[in-house]
């Protein structure tokens, strides 16, 4: 008897655990011409002014349309919700919103939808990580002061002047301001965003070609085609299911098995067999991403005239062509300027602007490093984060190339940092002792975006604290210039200053890559390396 009671007791424990294990949430994807696509868990809440990475941006691009939209092929900013944006002095703008646009909950999109959204994004109390995008608008320093409390809740530069018109006053002349308005942070927001914020975050409501039908955080999102969408770029499929993958290798395997329709990040290890695996259903198109090596100019050793020669020497010691060919298998191309080919030549991209300094000339490299007084500290340590993006492989390759060119096995070593967060942390505390990995993904396809945030004195991404009066002056002049072509010439002159000082070593332009199953047609990536979902046809 004794034994029996013990056994029943043990069974009881097991029985108590079982129900815990039995419950699971069921979310079914609809059939028809719905495609599934790989996704990553967005790092921040899905608010337009709070999303600064590609995964959240992917959703915003499907659910929202702003005043402007960047053409998926050319990258040119074209009017979407904007009927016209007028200015006479590059500082005061009058925006007229097109009639007939609605949010998917039926609310009309008005001038107020924009002004309220921008005020929300700029206000310090809302912790929006893209707040600085509103920094050009007058009154930003009041709603988002660097220190202390905000003294205003709304931007004084924004005024609603009619149901469909509002005015924007900037705190400086900025001629390409209208072209920045295609960025997700400038999207309009419906009233329910402000009145039922929590519910909105669980299921965002926008004005784009898709509506969010269901969203299981950390797992999947089902976006359905919105039949009442008034825009010209209606979805050509019935919907998209975004599935979160922890590892792009698994997503790739799922595409091979026909279990997933589209993977938009081909893991580096699969690049050599991708052509045979997918039988041509593989795209590899330029994206607005430039990889560079930045330098700590707060460190005296790197901020001398000799160090300028050393930097140029290092640049000439890197065999970009070989690394991009063997390591990246053509998914990156050697950089010859500080912008990106996606801008196009009339957008400011100028191939070969870097000249000999970005070509591989080992003998000259050795000479320049010697003339510059040798490597500071006798060795360069390239700091990078080792957790993502196969950075270790290319840093090792770059170091190898430098060591060979300089004829010194200890000239260059990699200095890995465990996580991206820690890497950013060390950068912001100015702890870098030598060059460090710097990647720049453009926010909007303008040459200004490749230069000002990175090299202007004290700019938001000027991590090396480089400062040059000539560069700053040229950028100011370019921003004030109303003629677009003239402005681009000035920006390119500023880029020349970056080149002459080798403020950062450009490495390569990065492409976006994607693979898909034979169910899909018309798959393309936009210049932000995001699939153009609304154009994809299924079946």
């Amino acid at each position, binding site marked *: 008897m004794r034994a029996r009671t013990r056994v029943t007791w043990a069974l009881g424990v097991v029985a108590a655990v079982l129900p815990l294990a039995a419950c699971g*949430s069921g979310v079914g994807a609809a059939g028809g011409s719905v495609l599934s696509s790989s996704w990553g868990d967005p790092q921040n*809440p899905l608010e337009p002014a709070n999303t600064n990475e590609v995964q959240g941006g992917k959703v915003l691009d499907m659910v929202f349309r702003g005043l402007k939209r960047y053409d998926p092929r050319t990258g040119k900013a074209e009017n979407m919700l904007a009927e016209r944006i007028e200015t006479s002095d590059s500082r005061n703008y009058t925006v007229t919103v097109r009639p007939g646009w609605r949010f998917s909950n039926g609310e009309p999109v008005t001038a107020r939808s924009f002004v309220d959204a921008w005020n929300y994004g700029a206000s310090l109390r809302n*912790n929006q990580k893209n707040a600085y995008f509103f920094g050009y608008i007058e009154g930003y320093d009041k709603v988002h002061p660097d220190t202390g409390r905000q003294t205003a809740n709304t931007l004084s530069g924004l005024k609603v002047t009619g149901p469909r018109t509002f005015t924007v006053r900037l705190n400086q002349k900025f001629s390409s301001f209208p072209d920045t308005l295609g960025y997700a942070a400038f999207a309009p927001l419906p009233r329910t965003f402000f009145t039922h914020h929590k519910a909105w975050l669980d299921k965002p409501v926008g004005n784009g070609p898709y509506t969010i039908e269901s969203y299981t955080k*950390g797992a999947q999102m089902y976006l359905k085609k919105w039949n009442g969408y008034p825009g010209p770029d209606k979805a050509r499929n019935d919907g998209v299911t975004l599935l979160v993958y922890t*590892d792009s290798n698994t997503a790739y*395997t799922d595409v091979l098995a026909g279990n*997933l329709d589209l993977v938009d990040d081909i893991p580096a290890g699969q690049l050599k067999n991708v052509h045979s695996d997918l039988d041509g259903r593989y795209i590899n198109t330029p994206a607005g991403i430039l990889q560079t090596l930045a330098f700590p100019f707060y460190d005296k050793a790197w901020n001398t005239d000799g160090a300028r020669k050393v930097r140029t020497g290092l640049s000439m010691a890197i065999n970009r062509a070989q690394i991009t060919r063997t390591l990246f298998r053509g998914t990156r191309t050697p950089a010859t300027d500080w912008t990106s080919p996606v801008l196009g030549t009339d957008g400011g991209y100028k191939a070969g602007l870097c000249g000999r300094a970005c070509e591989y000339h080992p003998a000259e490299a050795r000479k320049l490093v010697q003339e510059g007084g040798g490597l500071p500290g006798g060795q360069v340590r390239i700091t990078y984060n080792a957790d993502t993006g196969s950075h270790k492989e290319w840093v090792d390759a770059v170091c190898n190339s430098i060591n060979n060119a300089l004829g010194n096995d200890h000239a260059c070593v990699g200095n890995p940092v465990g996580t991206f967060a820690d890497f950013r942390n060390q950068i912001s505390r100015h702890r870098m002792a030598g060059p460090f990995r710097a990647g720049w993904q453009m926010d909007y396809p303008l040459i200004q975006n490749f230069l000002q945030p990175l090299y202007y004195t004290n700019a*938001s991404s000027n*991590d090396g604290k480089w400062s040059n009066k000539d560069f700053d002056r040229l950028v100011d002049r370019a921003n004030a210039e109303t003629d677009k072509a003239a402005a681009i010439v000035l920006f390119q002159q500023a880029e020349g200053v970056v080149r002459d000082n080798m403020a950062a070593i450009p490495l390569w332009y990065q492409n976006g890559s994607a693979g898909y199953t034979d169910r899909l047609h018309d798959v393309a990536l936009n210049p932000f390396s995001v699939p153009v979902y609304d154009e994809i046809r299924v079946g």
Partner: protein
Amino acid sequence: MGRYIARRLLQMIPVFVGATLLIFLMVNVMGDPIAGLCGERACDTATAAQLKREFGLDKPLWQQYATYMGNVFTGDFGTAFNGQPVTELMATAFPVTIRLTLVAIVFEVVIGITLGVVTGLRRGRPVDTAVLLGTLVVISVPTFVTGLLLQLLLGVKWDWIRPSVPPEATLDELIVPGLVLASVSLAYVTRLTRTSIAENRRADYVRTAVAKGLPRRRVVVRHLLRNSLIPVVTFIGTDIGALMGGAIVTERIFNIHGVGYQLYQGILRQNTQTVVGFVTVLVLVFLVANLLVDLLYAVLDPRIRYA
């Protein structure tokens, strides 16, 4: 028995506090988590300062820990950086991992013990040699190799399973990942059972049972196996904790959004709240599993009593 359990439960308190404190310190050593939130650029100082204030990161470390523990006892595990409460993450992650662990344990128990009994009773025969060789291979091949290989063969080449587990992660979809997760432990269980059975086969009580004329099946199951299970139960008990926390590799390969996935993401994003919360629960699971194992001893062997 009751007093014994009470004493064991009390002993858990210092272990629990010590473990959480250690994790808290370790995650904090990694530095300022806000720096990683703004992509390839510095967060503007005002927003960074405000985020720090909201997450309590501007306070001294001991105060952060005290506040955190105070909240934990009211059931509040904090908020992850994407705005989700950590308890919500747990509610989605733990059921999946528990199901996966359950599948793995079932494999260990059913296959491991059966193979162990069979080989233990037929020592030196071909079947014994074959199984021993098999377990040796399984132990020496790393889990990620087994996982990727099975995924490629069963998922892509032969098309028997989906290469990845869908978000619902029902029991039948977890069979292959569960097998992969269990593989190494399964081999150990086989070997442990085999040795134990082989040793006890010559014990006095087995001879007595045979001499009594009991049927062979009853001798093996009721007398021999029951007494041989103690080391195996110890192993499986501690393995529960290891399987739940150590499923990171398997969960990554099969894209299972369980505890391993949340921990991995939490560490990458340096999200103190997520990491400490999940590890705290894992520590509790480990402690409870150990207690259960100790109590099971008494069930298996009547000579063991707890006062």
